[in-house]
């Protein structure tokens, strides 16, 4: 049995240790904000924070995450909420399926405390696909978090 710390709460996980983390989060813990997209680590929808680092959860088995600190989109961390507010202000979601993963990626970037410029934003969002085509608004949201958007 795997014990898992998610959003500050410890859980004893019934699912097999080989089950991908995202299936445990969504189906066993019913934290459905983290999305399952490609199942191949190619779309970014399943990103969660593991010890503060944006990590794809659709392949890696839950057993790997024992003792790690996992934060999902449901977490109320102030940095995460700030990123969410930026997305709302920029209207940066169409269907919204990819957005929680993007929020996680930018939260990790902000938390890392490095210089955040256009290049850093694009590198952080590079593993994330949006099929609606909301990219320009997503970038606008990201830039508003750094003061790198000039006007605002």
């Amino acid at each position, binding site marked *: 049995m795997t014990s898992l710390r998610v959003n500050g709460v410890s859980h004893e996980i019934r*699912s*097999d240790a*080989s*089950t*991908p983390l995202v*299936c445990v989060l*969504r*189906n066993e813990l*019913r934290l*459905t*904000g*983290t*999305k*399952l997209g490609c*199942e191949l680590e190619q779309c970014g929808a399943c990103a969660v924070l593991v010890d503060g680092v944006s990590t794809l959860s659709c392949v890696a088995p839950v057993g790997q995450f024992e003792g790690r600190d996992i934060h*999902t*989109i*449901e977490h109320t961390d102030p940095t995460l909420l700030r990123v*969410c507010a930026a*997305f*709302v202000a920029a*209207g*940066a*979601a*169409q*269907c*919204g*399926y990819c*957005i*929680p993963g993007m*929020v996680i990626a930018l939260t990790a970037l902000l938390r890392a405390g490095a210089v955040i410029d256009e290049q850093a934003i694009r590198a952080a969002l590079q593993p994330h696909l949006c099929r*609606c085509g909301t990219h320009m608004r997503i970038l606008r949201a990201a830039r508003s978090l750094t003061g790198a958007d000039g006007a605002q």
Partner: protein
Amino acid sequence: MSLSESLETYRCVDDWIVVAPNRCITVRTGKVDIGQRISTALALIAAEELDVDFSRIDVETVDTATSLDEEYTSASNSIERSGNAVRLAAATARGRLLELASGTLGVERSSLQVDDGLVTSLATNRSITYWELMEGLPFAVAIDPAVPLKPPHQYRQIGRQVLAKDLIELVRGGAPFVHDMHMPEMLHARLVRPPHYHARVATIDETIYSRLDGGYLLRDGSFVAVAAEDEFRAIRLAQRVASAIRWWPERGLDARDVFQRLTAEPSVSLPERRGGFRRTRSTV
């Protein structure tokens, strides 16, 4: 204005507009919000015609069992059909509410003003809200297709920036998608996709049927899918079934030649038109 198809089917104000008891207004529709923000647009249309603040308008999530049947949500006709219907229904509702207020307050209808659902008589300064007037009762009036509509220069909400309905929940992962539903005895399914569009199942290794581990295999010609109680089990089962299938032909387009293939296909050239289309009068 001719009646939209939706209005021909749903002619009553109550089909579209409900004065809900919690000082909110519910707008009903058959158009599904899939991120195009139709619910925000419909809410604004209703808010404007009713003179109720946008934040008080709830747009009902479409449910096959109970919602209006407006056929598909496609072809950019949601505003034309649902939007026009909501607009006329809201304007008719407002007229009815003013009629009721005029009776209750004992004043001329022309002396009444509405601000966020509060009807005030300029003659007596007495006022009453939409919710007090309706007390949860239905309008029970038909939509008047000739009802006077608010002229656009009087718009106070349409054109203003508003917070899209459900946007906060969507960004926070709290807006449920179909994938997030949990039903009793639910199975998770996965398709076993062919390697390319024209591929057909040539053979299936029959021993796979004894290796389903309590899961299900569904096959209809070359459509193959699996299902299992546990999602990861369904994912693995799909992989196992995929390895038991031989497709024919095995290979589709060669990715190396894809641009050459595309440009070699027969094609039709169309003239490019710039500057948009001239507005034409529709001839229905």
